[in-house]
């Protein structure tokens, strides 16, 4: 961890009245290495380290009795600031909410849709799951099974219907059933697949979701920035959900996707069960990334 990485740098300097700038810069190089090993994007790492350099070269470090601790404190605080200072909050309108989940193949959208529905039902909302993935074998069946387990109704129109229409009919169905929150599961897609990106753009244009949430696998490496940037620029997202945080991945992707989109990370997927959806906690994520 950072503490042990810094030991070599600052130990030799204890007892001196002034810590050299050189030592601080060396410490920042260790921060850079730790970030890259934790899968934080290269450019995000560079910009982050530049940003904290000024603070790190300030009096609070150079005249400190424990400069290593001071640098760690600065890094930690800057990370929490970047990750979004308070825990994620999904703000839903009082009336009808339309939540669209998008993201790359296998990131956890279908499972997260059911988890989110269950969580919102527990908070007093009346959700409907809507099966917008008409491509993946047995995707609709998968949503039906997890929906059933979550105790949430599932709306589907089979695989021959345009997802735009499925979404709109889903909302009509919700209205008739007195349900106020439609959660639309969509097919996994590559951010560079123009046809598939056009599909979600069409859904957005016609169905007008109140929220578009990008679901990102927390084990993703440098590519996280590409994914998040393309979805945010090509579609516009309102927030993100980071999944599979029950793994031992350091999760530097969290920094990357925040850095490139500025959108909030709202939830953390922490397992395969339907209750495994937590609020996103920036402070816990920061500690985890630093290792």
């Amino acid at each position, binding site marked *: 961890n950072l503490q042990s990485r810094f030991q070599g740098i600052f130990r030799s300097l204890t007892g001196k009245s002034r810590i050299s700038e050189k030592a601080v810069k060396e410490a920042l190089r260790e921060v850079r*290495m730790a970030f890259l090993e934790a*899968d934080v994007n290269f450019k995000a790492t560079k910009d982050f380290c530049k940003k904290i350099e000024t603070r790190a070269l300030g009096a609070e470090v150079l005249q400190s009795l424990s400069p290593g601790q001071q640098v760690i404190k600065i890094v930690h605080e800057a990370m929490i600031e970047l990750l979004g200072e308070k825990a994620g909050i999904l703000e839903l309108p009082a009336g009808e909410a339309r939540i669209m989940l998008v993201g*790359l193949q*296998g990131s956890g959208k279908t499972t997260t849709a059911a988890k989110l529905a269950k969580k919102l039902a527990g908070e007093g909302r009346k959700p409907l799951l809507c099966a917008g993935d008409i491509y993946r074998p047995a995707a609709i*069946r998968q949503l039906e099974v997890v929906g059933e387990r979550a105790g949430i109704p599932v709306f589907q129109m089979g695989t021959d219907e345009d997802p735009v229409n499925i979404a709109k009919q889903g909302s009509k169905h919700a209205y008739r059933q007195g349900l106020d929150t439609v959660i639309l599961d969509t097919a996994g897609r590559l951010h560079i697949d123009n046809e598939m990106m056009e599909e979600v753009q069409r859904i957005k244009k016609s169905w007008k979701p109140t929220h578009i949430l990008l679901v990102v696998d927390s*084990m993703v*490496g*440098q590519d996280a920035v590409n994914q998040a940037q393309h979805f945010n620029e090509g579609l516009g997202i309102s927030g993100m959900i980071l999944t599979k945080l029950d793994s031992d991945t350091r999760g530097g*992707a969290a920094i990357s996707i925040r850095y490139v989109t500025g959108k909030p990370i709202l939830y953390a997927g922490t397992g395969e069960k339907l209750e495994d959806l937590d609020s996103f906690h920036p402070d816990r994520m920061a500690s985890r990334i630093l290792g």
Partner: protein
Amino acid sequence: FRLRGKIDDDLLDDLEEALISADVGMETTLALMEELRNRIRREKKTNSTDINWLTDTLQSLMRDMLEQGDRTLKVAEVGPSIYLIVGVNGVGKTTAIGKMAARFKSEGKQVLIVAADTFRAAAIEQLEIWSKRADVPIVLGSEGADPSSVVYNAMSAAKTQKPDVVVIDTAGRLHTKTNLLQELSKMSRVISREFDGAPQETLLVLDASTGQNAITQAKTFLQSCGLTGLILTKMDGTAKGGVILAVHKQLGLPVKFIGVGEGIDDLEPFDPDAFTRALFA
């Protein structure tokens, strides 16, 4: 990736950035850059404008890292060749099996696939659709059944049907879940008990966009159920899959196939030359 100018520190920094951005990882990148710098000194290429020499040299260093190990699938001397497909959640195991089944069938082989993911919602239905697409027989588990019993039933079926190849789908499982890894080694033991020398391959499926955690995944699966190779999926995205350099170097695991899409034909044998060239594209 645009490299231009002369071979100086700025260019080498750009090269280092390209490698890290391709998920090659710090340790492997530094090792490659150090060897590259040695070669630059040795062949007196400092400040030379011979960029082609530079990229060719780096690519050959990377190819050397990928050359060892057998990239072909092991075939059983007697009885069916049994391939066990494992990996963490959502990486593309079930889809890869559908593609492999079609490929083996087109090679004139009798294929049997096994739906041993009895845990995840609609996993069995998903593989069943692939068995219809590939037109191969399938052994179905029932949801909630012990996956080892499904594997056992599949081994009995294989003794009767005598297929050339058996490919077994397993539930996604995080390498951090010891009980799930134990479940997997139990499945592997059932296979080797029924057929000597089986499974001929235990392949870890890795998503090309995975970061450094892929190394931990490979290490842990290798230790607990043994691995003979990798399948690298979703190479049709923007991720380069550079982490397999470290997996190959540290654990000797060769990539046997890459997934390049969601269609039944989107599986290709791994080509180290194409892979290293694409890393720089």
